[in-house]
């Protein structure tokens, strides 16, 4: 697959370089580690620090969400690979204001180990209190009985948004973690892939699909999904995703949700809105109200084709977090 890059081994460094230059008013790179980026803006004294991170290739995830109202810092990994403990630890040190730091990341073996090691080091070596909340929103990744095994996909966006707002409200570490965990346990996602992406270093497609096929439930790194099938209409795809989501989480008539229709990379906005159209119809039929909608590329997989649908059940507190304004390089909400 064609890529507009220089040397495949430098893509992450060069992306960061470009990103820093484009958004120096938002973000700065720590001298200690070039994979450690922290907000360049003034944040409130005593605010709990929000640290996000994960592999590269998911932009706007994750560096795009550092700014007012979301994260205070990000540790940047190689493409589709968790960052190592060192950049995580450096960000932790830089953003701790004495109130501790909350790590938000997806439930992947690599992230669990690296963030886990960093948290231990922060505690032991730096005496910084660290809380963690993991995203496990992908209903296709494990049965309900093994919820804790599920991976995090686009729902991470809602978790960042909720926890970021909570930290901004002045919540303490325990409460920020509580809100993040509530956001996660109220959130479900599922995706469909139409075309693969390829790693710059291998150039090989992450999975194979025939011209008339799609993959249901695939992961955000091209991990095989739960089934391959013929490419269906946008309405059928939305029906399937929403059905599986609503089977997994009880949302009663009259309750309200936030919806995210997330593009995986190369799927035009036009198609995302066509999917959203059907998602809205389905929720309406169930008497479920949509409190807020997000449609676009929020957490991508390089140039993968397809989309995911995320639904988060809202209570009053989560609504407040969704309303909270955000000002990040790749996401602004007034």
């Amino acid at each position, binding site marked *: 697959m064609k890529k507009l890059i220089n040397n495949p*081994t430098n893509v992450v460094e060069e992306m960061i370089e470009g990103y820093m230059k484009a958004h120096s008013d938002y973000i700065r790179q720590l001298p200690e580690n070039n994979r450690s980026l922290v907000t360049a803006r003034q944040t409130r004294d005593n605010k709990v620090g929000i640290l996000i991170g994960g*592999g590269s290739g998911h932009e706007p995830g994750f560096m795009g969400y550092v700014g007012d109202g979301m994260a205070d810092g990000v540790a940047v*990994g*190689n*493409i*589709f*690979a*968790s*960052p*190592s*403990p*060192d950049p995580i630890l450096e960000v932790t040190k830089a953003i701790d204001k004495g109130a501790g730091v909350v790590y938000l990341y997806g439930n*992947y*073996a*690599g992230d669990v*180990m*690296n963030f886990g*090691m960093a948290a231990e080091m922060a505690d032991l070596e730096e005496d910084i209190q660290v809380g963690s909340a993991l995203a496990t929103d992908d209903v*296709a*990744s*494990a049965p309900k009985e093994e919820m804790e*095994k*599920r*991976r995090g996909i686009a729902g991470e966006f809602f978790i960042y948004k909720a926890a970021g707002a909570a930290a901004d409200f002045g919540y303490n570490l325990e409460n920020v973690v509580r809100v993040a965990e509530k956001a996660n346990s109220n959130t479900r996602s599922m995706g469909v892939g139409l075309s693969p992406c390829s*790693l710059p*270093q*291998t150039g*090989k497609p*992450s*999975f194979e699909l025939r011209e008339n096929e799609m993959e249901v439930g695939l*992961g955000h*790194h*091209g*991990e*095989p999904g739960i089934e391959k099938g013929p490419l269906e209409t946008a309405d059928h795809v939305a029906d399937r995703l929403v059905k599986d989501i609503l089977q997994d989480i009880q949302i009663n008539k009259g309750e309200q949700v936030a919806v995210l229709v997330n593009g995986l990379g190369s799927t035009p906005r036009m198609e995302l809105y066509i999917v959203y159209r059907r998602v809205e119809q389905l929720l309406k039929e169930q008497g479920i109200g949509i409190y807020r909608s997000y449609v676009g590329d929020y957490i991508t997989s390089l140039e993968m084709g397809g989309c995911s649908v995320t639904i988060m059940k809202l209570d009053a507190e989560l609504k407040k977090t969704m309303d909270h304004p955000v000002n990040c390089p790749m996401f602004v909400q007034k």
Partner: protein
Amino acid sequence: MEITARDFKDYFILIVNMIEEQKDYLCELDRRIGDGDHGVTMSIGWQAVHERLLNELAEEEDSAKISLIVGKTFLNAVGSSVGPLYATGFMRGAKTIKNKSTVHTDDLVAYWLAFARGIKERGRSEVGDKTMVDTLEPFAKMLETKYKESNDFIAAYSEAIAAAKEGMESTKDLVSRKGRSSRLGERSVGALDPGATSAYFILATFLDFVEAKKVKAS
């Protein structure tokens, strides 16, 4: 038999070269049940190690320190799943040979046992989970037993490698219970685990190394 700091470095350079050769194969394995990057990740990590070996470590005589820095360098360069796993292996190994420049066979056995067990601990995995532990655990067990019996490192290590190979091959028929591939459930059956494979290569490269060293010596 004794292993010097120079030997450690030579062995690590053999790994660097081996990984470049196996990179595509390891990616291919990972594409089937993971995200397709295992070869790339190993390559990034070992290239970073290579750079260290050629520079800061060029004159280093402390084998423990070399192993420690190899682990740390690998970890910092890759993160990922295998970063903490292999890094823990080399760092725990380093502990067993602390302050030593030349390592004798007793220590070498301890080194490899600590390597294998460190990874197992870090990954919280058991044999049968379809991970590198399926290679490492039988390897460690066999090495320990056989070395106790014979006190012959190369003989014991050779048998351990055979056990490692069997362990690696056993992953083909397993359902994954750890890591990225665990979400595939039954569909992970039929594919070798990429980490089990790279672990086998790393262990086997040491056998190649010591055998070549023996030939040279004799």
